[in-house]
């Protein structure tokens, strides 16, 4: 299958400022999180992908289309949700979405039908007929999302889609993205600062810092720690269980209820349950050790700073 995005040594300079520095990456199916601190080059990368700014050097493809010569075709297949409020004052929500549909080539009646369909999907009721100036942040985010998907694009590029949303709306927005990807075969790239969103919805992650890609990995790879292990949460005589389990694997007590078993613990769950039962304890939870995305992000950013200095 064609990779969603392929970049090879892409550099973008704005006068004396280098926004992207020999960026190479390959993004596959599913949802990809594009992470990076402010000014890292995320917005520039999105504009390069959309063909809105030309690269200084390097080459790339989006959905198999060349970013230098097929920008128009790319924009026809991509739904872009900008971070800034991109609404035209004085228009209603449904008019805005219909306008976007027309700019994407949908005829008037078809555009209106599609606008209503998409606004239903986005959970916008009668407020769609209200002037967009009166919309709350959440409604504006929904509107921008509706504009991004009105023409049924293959790829969604969403810039801070959950910014300013309350927890309930945030979950709803992520569910919409997930639904489009899982049930409708779309692909998505989400640029965000909100790491729990990435953890919740993304299949892979790309971290950019100072214009360079510092990490490109699947979420499974990100989660996998250098030293694997299992956490066991128990109720009962914890020291007895520890002593029993420590006979076969390095184990340590974390607190009154939590144990850590180091090393690869694949298939050892049964043994843990038996040990707990033998000691008269109850196992409340068993979960693998995994990296925190925050720590991975901080490390990736720190590494780029070290490399620069």
């Amino acid at each position, binding site marked *: 299958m064609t990779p969603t995005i392929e970049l090879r040594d892409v550099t973008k300079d704005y006068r004396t400022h280098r*926004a992207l520095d020999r960026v190479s990456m390959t993004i596959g199916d599913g949802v990809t999180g594009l992470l990076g601190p402010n000014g890292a080059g995320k917005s520039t990368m999105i504009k390069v992908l959309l063909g*809105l700014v030309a690269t200084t050097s390097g080459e790339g493809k989006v959905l198999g289309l060349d970013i230098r010569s097929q920008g128009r075709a790319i*924009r026809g297949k991509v739904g872009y949700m900008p971070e*800034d409020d991109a609404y035209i004052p004085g228009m209603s929500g449904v008019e805005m979405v219909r306008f976007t549909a027309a700019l994407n*080539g*949908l005829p008037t009646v078809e555009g209106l039908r599609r606008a209503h369909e998409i606004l239903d999907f986005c959970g916008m009721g009668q407020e769609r007929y209200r002037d967009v100036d009166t919309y709350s942040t959440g409604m504006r985010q929904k509107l921008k999302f509706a504009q991004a998907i009105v023409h049924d694009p293959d790829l969604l590029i969403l810039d801070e889609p959950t910014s300013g949303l309350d927890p309930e709306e945030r979950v709803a927005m992520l569910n919409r993205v997930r639904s489009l990807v899982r049930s409708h075969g779309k692909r998505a790239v989400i640029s965000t600062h909100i790491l729990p969103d990435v953890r919740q919805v993304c299949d892979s992650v790309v971290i950019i810092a100072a214009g360079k890609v510092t990490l490109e990995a699947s979420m499974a790879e990100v989660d996998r720690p250098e030293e694997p292990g299992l956490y066991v949460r128990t109720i009962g005589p914890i020291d007895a269980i520890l002593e029993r389990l420590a006979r076969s694997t390095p184990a340590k007590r974390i607190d009154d209820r939590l144990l850590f078993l180091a090393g690869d613990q694949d298939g050892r769950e049964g043994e843990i349950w038996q040990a707990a039962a033998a000691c008269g304890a109850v196992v409340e939870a068993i979960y693998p050790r995994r990296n925190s995305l925050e720590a991975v992000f901080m490390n990736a950013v720190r590494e780029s700073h070290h490399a620069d200095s």
Partner: protein
Amino acid sequence: MANRIEMLKHGIRATIRYEIARSLNLGRGAAFLVLALFPPAITAIICRLPGAPPTMIPIGVTSLVVCVLANLVWSTSAVSGELEGKTWAYLAARPGGRIASMIGKYIVSVGWTALVTLSALTISIAVQALLVPTGDELRLWLIFASCGLIACFAYASIYTLLGTIFHRRAMVAAVVHTGVFELMIGWIPGIIQYATVRGPLVHLAVIGLVDKEVLEDPNFTLVFGEPNVIGHLISVVCLTIVALLASLWLIRTREYATTQEV
């Protein structure tokens, strides 16, 4: 290709519809009234002066001024307005967004400026007909209305071009251009006048207003040149088309970076 043209047509139609919808507001209505009533007010004052001096030139000049001012307000902001409103990325990210948006905005601004210019002209001539009738009002209206319409198309494309080049200081650039080209260079007799809109338009108005014998008078031609209607028309049409094509090319190829990227 047919698909692309169809897409562009939908985009232009939608832009026109929404540009009209969003321009129907109190601010623009007030601007419309001020601009449309300014020439009639001047005409009325002149008609009331002792001896009632001729109003032909003031009507022509004020109508042209109204056309320029209306274009300054509505044509220069095609790109800069979207950049300031942060809607540029949203428009540019659509397949035909940039071109459709610019052509749509151009058509709407020509429509608005034509409406205000013709309103100003019509009311002015009506005022003159009421206060100091000459019996020549229809001819005067036809000549000034034709020149006014041409001016609307021409100034709209020039200001749109200036707006796409100097998008951060679009209005300043348009005012400077008007001062330098239309007010200074426009007065210089010779071929350089063809770089302005005012030069050929004044010639066209004079050709329409002045009697044939006067036009053929060697003294007159010495100052005004040969009464070449086609030549003047071609020059102003070429200027309009070149400016419009240049704007389209720029808008399609130029990178309009937002401040956080630079």
